[in-house]
């Protein structure tokens, strides 16, 4: 999503010289190292289940931002992939008795498949229509989850066993589970970084900035859009499946449109189109929900108000502002 709507106005992106870009990659490596360190030592400071929630949502928001920030497509239905993966991995672990690693894999694969199907339909329109179509498609998944017997209706799937990883490590222990979630989180993040900085990612940005030009250069735009949609859905599914194992629960909340809105909010607060913004946004939103849990239902009012304030006066997001001050892409 660019700040300028019309093609005749200059875009806000500034060309970066090649040597600066190499520096930035090194800088990003340092930040990744910092995140890995923070993840390693955070359990000493905060409750592990809270941190695991932050990591699941951080990965979710990063995957969502892959589509929005780099693909230029605002999906308002990412809860479908998050929730579908949560349900499938919960079923796999509980009903089919699969070990956690296969349950998570099953969830992510289901999200990939769903993303391939829905993506093919949704990319037929862009902009506002794309947002409405993804929202409507996700609502379909919500109704299926509500009505199907296997998903447990209003109750969802509760009491999902955490199981033993590779038949060796008992994930009933919060710290063992924490290590696994941390690895999934860092691997997912590395995947997003790799995709963004690959030749594929550069073509994506070219399409976002100037679609007719990319088309005229011979790039098959719909194919690129579909590919990034599937990647985003898959990584979203990875986050959703992991979340189901951590909380031992897949419920209607995971597929509801409020979840789709929440991930948009995280990305908006952190900074759309930045590498690390969605993580910051996820931390802010999850922390807000955690510390303000006592006010109950008013939290959605606060989230709505934050939405309005961010859209009106804080479109760059926290990391976006930082990146401008540091004059480096973050």
């Amino acid at each position, binding site marked *: *999503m*660019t*700040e*300028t*709507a019309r093609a005749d106005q200059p875009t806000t992106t500034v060309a970066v010289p090649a040597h600066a870009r190499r520096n930035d990659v090194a800088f990003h490596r340092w930040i990744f190292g910092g995140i890995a360190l923070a993840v390693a030592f955070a359990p000493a400071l905060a409750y592990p289940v809270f941190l695991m929630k932050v990591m699941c949502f951080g990965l979710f928001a990063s995957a969502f931002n892959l589509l929005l920030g780099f693909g230029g497509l*605002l999906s*308002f239905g990412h809860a479908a992939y998050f929730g579908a993966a949560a349900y499938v991995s919960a079923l796999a672990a509980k009903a089919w008795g699969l070990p956690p690693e296969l349950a998570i894999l099953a969830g992510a694969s289901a999200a990939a498949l769903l993303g391939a199907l829905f993506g093919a*339909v*949704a990319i*037929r*329109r862009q*902009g*506002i*229509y794309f*947002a*409405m*179509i993804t*929202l*409507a*498609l996700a*609502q*379909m998944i919500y*109704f*299926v989850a509500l*009505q199907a017997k296997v998903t447990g209706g209003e109750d969802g799937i509760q009491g999902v066993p955490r199981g033993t990883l590779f038949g060796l490590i008992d994930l009933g222990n919060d710290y063992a589970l924490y290590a696994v979630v941390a690895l999934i989180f860092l691997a997912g993040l590395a995947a997003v970084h790799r995709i963004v900085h690959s030749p594929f990612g550069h073509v994506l940005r070219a399409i976002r900035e100037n679609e007719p030009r990319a088309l005229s250069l011979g790039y098959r735009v719909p194919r690129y859009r579909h590919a990034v949609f599937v990647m985003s859905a898959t990584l979203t599914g990875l986050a959703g499946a992991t979340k189901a194992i951590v909380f031992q629960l897949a419920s209607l909340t995971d597929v509801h*449109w409020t979840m789709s*809105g929440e991930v*948009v909010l995280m990305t*908006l607060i952190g900074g759309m189109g930045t590498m690390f913004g969605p993580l910051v946004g996820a931390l802010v939103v999850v922390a807000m929900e955690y510390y303000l849990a006592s006010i*109950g*239902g*008013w939290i*959605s*009012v606060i*989230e*709505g*108000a*934050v*939405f*309005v304030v961010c*859209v*009106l006066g804080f*479109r760059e997001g926290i990391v976006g502002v930082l990146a401008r001050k540091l004059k480096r892409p973050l």
Partner: protein
Amino acid sequence: MHTIFGIPSQLLFGQLLLGLINGAFYALLSLGLAVIFGLLNIINFSHGAFYMLGAFLAWMLLTYCGIGYWWSLVLAPLIVGALGIAVERLLIARLYRLDPLYGLLLTFGLALVLQGVFRNIYGVSGLPYGIPSALAGGRNLGFMILPNYRAWVIALSLAVSISTWLAIEKTRLGATLRAATENPALVEAFGINVPLFVTVTYGFGVALAALAGVLAAPIYSVNPNMGADLIITVFAVVVIGGLGSILGSIVTGFGLGLAEGLTKVIYPEASSTVIFAIMIVVLLVKPNGLFGKAT
């Protein structure tokens, strides 16, 4: 008992009537969305919240002020329209130079706030609102019994939809509005106050949503969540019809309501998803929607 294709005719006509009622709401809401989109170029996510607000205003006017249904039918859209004008002036107007997706995000946040406030004050169980006495009862049409209130809802929403269409297509004011949709800069150069047009249009669009809310209050109970799920279905309706045509959104609204009612008879499990399934088919066959212009 009569049957049609093996379906009892009472059941069939009953569900088709329900479908027509739903269709009336789809039509009123998608009409408002289309009018707003035409001039403001944004999708108003808070449309469902304004619909809910209309129903709540009817309930509040009755409960706190003793004002009945008929006055609410006028007052609630006026109040919501005024609120819409304030929202457009204070908030949405700041976003016109940006990507239209920001308008979607802003109105989404607004919807969260409005729905959240009412949910916290009034809970989610729903408040009853009686049918006005003049429209109580029903009449026997021979093949089915038609409740008077439902006939009124269909008739009024048809009348409002068609007069809106006529006003936009056939009057001088409507012609100016269409010109402003097409090329705001040029229309402004002719000395017409386009920003005022935009503001009033937004107010009018959300007033339509509030009118639908008042109409819905006696049928469904008054509930803070009543607009949230409805608006997503209306988005699908809008994608199917395309936002380009006013008449298109009216026809699509009623048509899809009927399709939904029919599904309830044939295969009830699919009734909540059938509109989304139709949307997928339309997108694959005619991506711009049934009445949409090529972009």
